[in-house]
């Protein structure tokens, strides 16, 4: 009964999406306010029906309804309740349901928080979101319906969720990532609506800016969580693998970062208009491309869902219609665009343009590295693989000019900046950061010159950020106290500062962990010990324990630092009983300056075990920096001007009544 209800709800959501794609747009083009007014209720309807479908699927998981083949394949009676609920998005069909739920959530959010935008524009934006939705609802219902029934052959028990996914990181990583991916659809919809209306002025940039910031925050958090999850759950000790699926999430992030900056220029200075439109289309297209890569099985990856060419073909169809259509429309409309703003060679506009170019270059590098094996093979040149060395090398080249511009940009003025004043500040900042980097460099016994480069760049950003704040408050009225003046900086300004500082923190983490990581892969008998820098690890043997749906060998390690006992670490080797799948649960001891990481390998003969021990300096800074960046995004979002318009909206009316009785 409940699954049928879910199926019906999904169908009704499709119907709402179709209506949403047609009527409001028709109304906006022919100027019929009755049709324009249908946009908001239809968006709300689409969201409600999708939510019902999602709740139905969750219910089926919670009650072990194995008559649904999706539940039977991804759950099990032994699975703990929290993982039963997260198993809803543990496979292809359910994760897609989450995807469309997010899409409808963004749609309804646009419907609610768009009171200050002209009604025809909202109608067009929602209609474009409707078009995006139609494709995905059709895709779900036709090729990957989670409500597919197994009747009359109902299995007694399910096949269990992939043990890799039975983890806290997995509970929140996909929702965050999808929120980010799908969030770029809003910027796409704004750009699409502006293209359809032929009104490519800077207003659409102002409206879509907070949406891009929100999506970017989610994507940043999602990527960080994914990286963190890979770090402690996969047991490989790495935090980024340049896996095609990681790349698939990284490309929209790079494009989204470029878009966020370009939107600021378009809004403030009314230049780079066509470029911003292109980035808005690009960011969402890359999200779609990511979805395609993960779900079509075109590229081999640890993340791939079970592949099926028809599914891939369907997503490719959606990609071609949406992105191809938008780009075609862009080609027709953008030729007539002229930028009106004027600016000199040394100005903030140019710095931001440079930053955009570098971010796009980085996106292209990732895109090339991900797709080249495929292209190479289809051209009949044989199979090749492109690995981490390529990406690492390219990113080292890109990051130097990128950081340079990142430091200059905030310090320069719009329109025109005196080179002399800028040079003095930059050189001061550079000297301070070089000294700091060298100090750290000499505190390590190993010699790694890349570390000096990475650290200098990171500190340069930090010092330049401080200088920038100093310059700002110096320009303010000196009768206020410094604390007061700091508070007078806008929240979106703080957002920028936090974003840049977060990037520097991540860069410090990456630099130190890549250059000073220590690793030992050893065979250990109980009672043996190894020493890595200051730490001594004593192996006390292995005991067996029983989890709810797994059996586990737990290794016991005592860790001593300079003779003093620091902690006990217990890495595990689990066998999940239903899927007979072995899993490595690494033991990690974290402090702010380093992680100790022990992974238990295979049991060897005569009671010895293969053991991997790492010391990872400053590795948590990588994700900490990501969190600061996301916090910066939240800060920018909470800027006064957005809160004002939202408050005004809330005072007016609730979304439903506003749709009927707007513009009193």
């Amino acid at each position: 009964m409940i699954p049928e209800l879910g199926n019906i709800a999904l169908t009704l959501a499709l119907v709402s999406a179709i209506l949403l794609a047609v009527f409001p747009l028709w109304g906006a083009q022919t100027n019929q306010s009755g049709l324009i007014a249908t946009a908001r209720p239809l968006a709300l309807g689409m969201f409600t029906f999708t939510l019902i479908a999602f709740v139905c699927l969750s219910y089926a998981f919670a009650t072990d309804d194995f008559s649904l083949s999706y539940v039977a394949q991804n759950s099990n009676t032994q699975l703990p309740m929290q993982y039963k609920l997260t198993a809803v998005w543990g496979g292809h069909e359910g994760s897609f349901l989450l995807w469309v739920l997010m899409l409808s959530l963004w749609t309804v959010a646009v419907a609610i928080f768009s009171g200050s935008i002209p009604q025809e524009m909202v109608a067009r934006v929602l209609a474009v979101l409707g078009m995006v939705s139609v494709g995905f609802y059709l895709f779900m219902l036709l090729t990957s319906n989670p409500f597919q029934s197994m009747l009359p052959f109902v299995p007694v028990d399910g096949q269990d969720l992939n043990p890799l996914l039975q983890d806290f990181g997995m509970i929140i990583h996909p929702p965050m990532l999808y929120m980010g991916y799908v969030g770029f659809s809003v910027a796409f919809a704004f750009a699409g609506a502006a293209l359809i209306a032929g009104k490519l002025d800077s207003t659409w940039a102002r409206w879509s800016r907070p949406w891009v910031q929100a999506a970017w925050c989610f994507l940043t958090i999602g990527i960080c969580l994914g990286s963190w999850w890979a770090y402690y759950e996969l047991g490989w000790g790495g935090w980024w693998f340049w896996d095609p699926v990681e790349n698939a999430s990284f490309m929209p992030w790079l494009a989204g970062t470029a878009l966020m900056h370009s939107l600021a220029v378009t809004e403030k200075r009314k230049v780079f208009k066509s470029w911003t439109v292109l980035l808005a289309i690009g960011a969402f297209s890359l999200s779609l491309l990511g979805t395609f890569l993960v779900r079509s099985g075109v590229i081999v990856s640890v993340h791939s869902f079970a592949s099926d060419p028809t599914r891939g073909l369907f997503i490719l169809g959606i990609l071609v219609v949406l992105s191809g259509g938008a780009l075609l429309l862009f080609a027709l409309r953008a030729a007539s665009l002229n930028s009106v703003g004027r600016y000199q060679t040394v100005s903030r506009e140019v710095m931001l343009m440079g930053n955009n170019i570098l971010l796009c270059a980085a996106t292209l590098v990732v895109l090339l590295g991900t797709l080249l094996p495929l292209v190479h093979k289809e051209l009949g040149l044989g199979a090749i693989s492109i690995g981490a060395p390529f990406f690492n090398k390219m990113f080292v080249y890109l990051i130097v000019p990128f950081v340079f511009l990142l430091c200059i940009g905030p310090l320069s003025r719009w329109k025109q900046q005196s080179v002399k004043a800028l040079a003095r500040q930059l050189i001061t900042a550079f000297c301070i950061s070089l000294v700091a980097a060298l100090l750290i460099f000499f505190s390590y016994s190993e010699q790694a010159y890349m570390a000096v480069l990475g650290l200098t760049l990171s500190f340069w950003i930090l010092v330049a950020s401080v200088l920038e704040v100093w310059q700002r408050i110096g320009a303010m009225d000196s009768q206020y106290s410094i604390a007061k003046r700091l508070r007078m900086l806008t929240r979106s300004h703080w957002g920028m500062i936090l974003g840049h500082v977060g990037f520097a923190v991540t860069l410090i983490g990456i630099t130190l962990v890549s250059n000073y990581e220590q690793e030992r892969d050893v065979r250990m008998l109980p009672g043996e010990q190894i020493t890595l820098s200051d730490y001594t690890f004593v192996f006390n043997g292995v005991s067996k324990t029983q989890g709810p749906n797994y059996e586990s060998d737990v290794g016991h390690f005592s860790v001593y630092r300079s003779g003093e006992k620091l902690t006990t670490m217990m890495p595990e080797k689990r066998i999940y009983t239903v899927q007979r799948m072995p899993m490595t649960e690494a033991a990690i001891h974290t402090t702010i300056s380093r992680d100790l990481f022990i992974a238990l390998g295979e049991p060897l003969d005569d009671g010895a075990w293969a053991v991997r021990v790492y010391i990872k300096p400053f590795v948590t800074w990588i994700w900490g920096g990501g969190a600061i960046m996301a916090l910066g995004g939240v800060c920018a979002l909470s800027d006064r001007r957005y809160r004002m318009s939202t408050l005004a909206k809330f005072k007016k009316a609730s979304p439903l009544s506003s749709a009927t009785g707007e513009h009193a």
Partner: protein
Amino acid sequence: MKKTWLVVIPVVLFSLIAGFLYLGLFSDPRELDSQITGRPLPSFTLPDLMEPEKQYTPESLAGEVTILNVWGVWCVTCAVEMPYLTQLKEEKGVKFVGLYFDQDLDPDNGTKTLNRVQQEVSALLSRYGNPYAFNIFDTYRDTSLDLGVTGAPEHFVIDKKGIVRMHHVGDINERVWRNKIEPLYRKLTQGSATGADS
């Protein structure tokens, strides 16, 4: 006019990418396309591993269905499959020829002597069984490169006319033999027997 061209570039690029993605959908990414399959062996003149004065060319393999096995003493999986290969040789009369590959044995910058490797090879073969009719020593490892070898062990099924019929990456175990190699091997041995009659 210049601007018109610029704005068309994105849509053109996108179409190109979409085209490749479409093609990619219908090919298996895990399949290593061996370009050698269906073609004759690349030409070579290489010495025997044990008796370097003896030289082999592709013609040395003609006339009999042969499985060319790329291996080395440094390769653990090679040692693992050796007993099964020996069993195949003894029970079914499969002819294996080794293509010996060793990075450390390069005449210009290797760290091992030929003598030492010969000893290691004899030791290994006497321990795990010797499936090989003979071993060809790929001195500069270029024949392996011509064959598209990416690791060891790899196997090439070669028919009586010296044409490569199959490239199998990885070890041969009972399952692989039954499902993948034996059907072709049977066809080649029987098919060309009738071919020789006609």
